[in-house]
Every structure is written in structure tokens, then in C-alpha cells.
């Protein structure tokens, strides 16, 4: 225990921001920036990919499908190495590990997230789109205002899993010298040499806290929406409001909320 405290008090700055300001911003800060950029860019992109994939126009649906199948078919680490070595060779100048990591992460995660979004769109009763079209809304307008708000809400648990896995996949930046949290921890480990369990235990705790916070945020958001339209909808099974929360809170019972 005292060892843990000692390691943290000696290395907290390195774990928090890496070599900054004497070197690149690293550590937890870098991990968070990678995660936030990854999620913030992948999410809107995934909606576009999902729309393209459900489109009746092959010009849109085929490339989107190819991207999804491609991303699903190969490991992320392999894409990272590919991009890291190939892109500079192709464009003739260096690309930083950080940029490589953000781009790869966004494309890879967007492809997976797109499948989640597509499942939400296609699980919604057709009557919703038909009702909007019958009232004179165009396809994109109906999609944006009627289908997506419901579809995205319904797939929030799966999207959250994907967001969390984005955070965890930032660790792969380690192999292309991105100075994120795992990189910082292994620097600490290399200095100490004899305390790998302590160092990597601290690392695990930090990752857990970050991922857990995101889970809590999503749960809070979901509760807020569910409260707003208490009892949720008739187009979904009545138990959904409760059930949809439970996959997230795996480690504790779901609080029973009253349905009016």
C-alpha cells in the first residue's frame, strides 16, 4: 500500500500529462483527448455510415458496407500499423502517431458504431417513417426528427459499450509511440523495474474510473430521457425503460422506478 502511494506521489505528473511541457502532452490527458476526439468524431460519422448503409442507392450503400465489413474483418492493431507505415510512404511526409491514432480509431469505431445505429434504425417500427412521410416530410427530415431520436435512444446501451471500447483501444497507441496513459505507465515501470504489479494496478484503476464515469454519465442521460416521457412508448415493449438500463449496471441491482 505504501508502495502504491509512493509510486503515485513520485510519478503523478508523468501519469497525468506525460513529459509536458518539456515533451508532448501525454499520460491520462492524452488518453482523454484521444478518447473524446475518437468518440466525438466517430459518432456523427457512424450515423452517416448507417444512413448510407440503409440507403436504397447502391452508390452509398456499397462503400458503407465495404467499410463495415473491412473494419470488422481485421484487428485494429493491424490497421494502426498499416496506416502508420503506409500513409507516410504514400503522401511522402511524416504523420504523427497521435494523428494516425485519431484517424484510425475514428474510422474503425465509426464502422462498428454504424452497425449499432443501423440496428436501431431498422428495429424501429416502419409505421414511424410511414407516418412522417404521409404527413409530407421528406426522407432525411423524417429520419432526423422522427427515426433517429428514437433509434439512438433505444441503442444507447450498445453505443455506450462501443464508446467504452474506444477509450480502451486508445491503449494501442502505445505501439506507435503515442505518449498516452499506458505509455506513461510503462515508462514508470521501466524506471522502477521491480514493481510491475503496482504500476499496472494503478493503470487498471485509472482506466476503470474513466470508463465507469462514462457509464454513469450515460445512465444519468438515459434516466433523464425516460423520466421525460415516463412509461416510454407503445411502439416498444412496455418493459424496455427498465430493461434497457440493466445491461450497463452489471455490478449492482437496477433501482426500481415507478411507472405512472
Amino acid at each position, binding site marked *: 500500500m505504501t508502495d502504491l502511494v509512493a509510486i503515485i506521489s513520485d510519478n503523478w505528473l508523468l501519469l497525468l500529462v506525460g513529459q509536458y511541457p518539456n515533451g508532448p502532452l501525454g499520460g491520462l490527458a492524452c488518453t482523454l483527448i484521444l478518447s473524446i476526439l475518437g468518440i466525438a468524431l466517430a459518432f456523427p460519422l457512424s450515423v452517416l455510415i448507417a444512413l448510407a448503409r440503409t440507403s436504397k442507392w447502391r452508390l452509398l450503400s456499397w462503400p458503407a458496407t465495404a467499410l463495415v465489413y473491412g473494419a470488422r474483418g481485421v484487428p485494429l492493431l493491424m490497421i494502426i500499423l498499416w496506416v502508420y507505415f503506409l500513409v507516410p510512404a504514400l503522401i511522402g511526409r511524416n504523420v504523427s502517431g497521435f494523428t494516425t491514432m485519431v484517424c484510425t480509431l475514428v474510422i474503425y469505431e465509426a464502422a462498428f458504431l454504424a452497425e449499432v445505429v443501423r440496428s436501431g434504425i431498422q428495429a424501429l*417500427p416502419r*409505421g*414511424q417513417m*410511414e*407516418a*412522417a*412521410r*404521409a*404527413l*409530407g*416530410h*421528406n*426522407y432525411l*427530415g423524417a429520419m432526423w*426528427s*422522427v427515426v433517429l*431520436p*428514437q433509434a439512438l*435512444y433505444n441503442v444507447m446501451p450498445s453505443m455506450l459499450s462501443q464508446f467504452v471500447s474506444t477509450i480502451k483501444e486508445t491503449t494501442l497507441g502505445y505501439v506507435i509511440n503515442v505518449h498516452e496513459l499506458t505509455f506513461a505507465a510503462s515508462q514508470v515501470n521501466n524506471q522502477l523495474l521491480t514493481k510491475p504489479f503496482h504500476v499496472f494496478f494503478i493503470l487498471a484503476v485509472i482506466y476503470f474510473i474513466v470508463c465507469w464515469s462514462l457509464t454513469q454519465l450515460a445512465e444519468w442521460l438515459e434516466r433523464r430521457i425516460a423520466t*421525460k*416521457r*415516463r*412509461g*416510454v*412508448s*407503445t*411502439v*416498444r415493449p412496455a418493459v424496455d425503460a427498465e430493461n434497457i438500463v440493466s445491461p450497463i449496471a452489471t455490478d449492482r441491482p437496477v433501482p426500481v422506478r415507478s411507472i*405512472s
Partner: protein
Amino acid sequence: MISFSKVNKWYGDYHALVDVTARVNKGEVVVVCGPSGSGKSTLIRTVNRLEEIQSGELTFDGRSVHAPMSGSELNKLRSHIGFVFQSFNLFPHMSVVENVMFSPIRVNSMGKSEARDKALSLLERVGLASKAGAYPAQLSGGQQQRVAIARALAMEPPAMLFDEPTSALDPEMVGEVLAVMRSLANDGMTMMCVTHEMGFAREVADCVWFMDAGSILEVADPQTFFKQPQHPRAQRFLSDLRTH
């Protein structure tokens, strides 16, 4: 107002609508009845082109619905045709008043406060002004269907189509929806209703169309249809209805 001329539709090999020729005049209430699978819903869904047809002509208010047209022309045409679904299809993420305001604002670019006033007066008309702030999930089926009618009326359509509006309702809620439809009919709305409510047909309809196997077999005023149906299939249908 709505006229079908030799309309044919196939689902693959299945001939869903067979040479349908009929018309709904302005201000008229037409009830379409017939056994399930006879093509009633398909027929009504071709009017606002939720279903395509393969041959024939269908005009609404003088415009050919299935003629080649741009997406925005079709949207505009649809916005003039009120459609009420069996399963209500209210937007569950919007409150009742938002459901009614949504299309006038987005499709007709109406101002928000004007749209709200209009929505509230329409909700008043269907007896649900007190539910304006509620969400669809908090309403009974009958109330949801009345909101759906108000939502369709908000676009000020010259005609309303009803696709089995009471079939998904508990028996005690059928009456409130039929009452709203009856008052619409009394106000002179042109209506085409697919329904199994023979009482409503008898009382409100100007004309009954009997369909089977994709064809309209009989067109008659309700008195004649219910007392002396001409077509043997219609006679059988009505006697089956009476036996239980």
C-alpha cells in the same frame, strides 16, 4: 376527389389489386369493407403512394398520384392527404401537442406560436386539450388515435383516409374514435375509411365498397348494401358477420 381507374398492383406473382375502378366524390364518406386479405388496406395506401401501383391511374384532387414526379412534389401531394393508421404511429418522443405542431412547422413552415394555437384548437376538437403536454405512452389507445386524427387534420387536408382506425383498440375505446370521425363527416370532410365497424358504415357512410381478392365487387349505398347485397360474396360476408 379520389378516383381509381383500372388500378392494378402485384406483389411478385400475387395480384393484390385487380382492375379497381371507383371514385370518391367531394364531401362523400366511403367505407371500404371486406374480408381480411381482400386488398382494402393496400387500396387505401395507394392513394398517398405508400404503396406503388403497376398499372392504371389514380387521381387525387385532379392530380395523378402515381405519375412520375420529383420527391418534393410527392411530399407536397402527401401533405394534402390526411392519413390515419391502424397502429396510430404517434411520435413517442414528442408530447401530444408537439406531435400535432410538428408537421405544420416543418412541412408548411408555419410559425411556432401559430402552430401551437392551431394544435391546441384541434386537440380541443378531438376532446384532448387537457392532454396537450402528455406523451403518447401516457394515453389510452383511443386517445392516441384521436391525437393521430388531430395530427392529420393539422395539415388541413381536403380529404382524410382511415386505415382500420379502430381495429387496434379495446372495444370500449372504439366509440370515442368513431365519434370524432362522425363529427368530421358531419362537417363535410371527404373520407375514405377501411373499417370493420358496420354500425359506423350504416350510419355515416354515403357509399360502401365491398372488396374481395383485390377487386371491388359491389358499390352501393349502405341501406341497399346491408339489406339487399347483390354479390353472392357480399351476401356471405354479411351473413358471417351477423352470425356472431
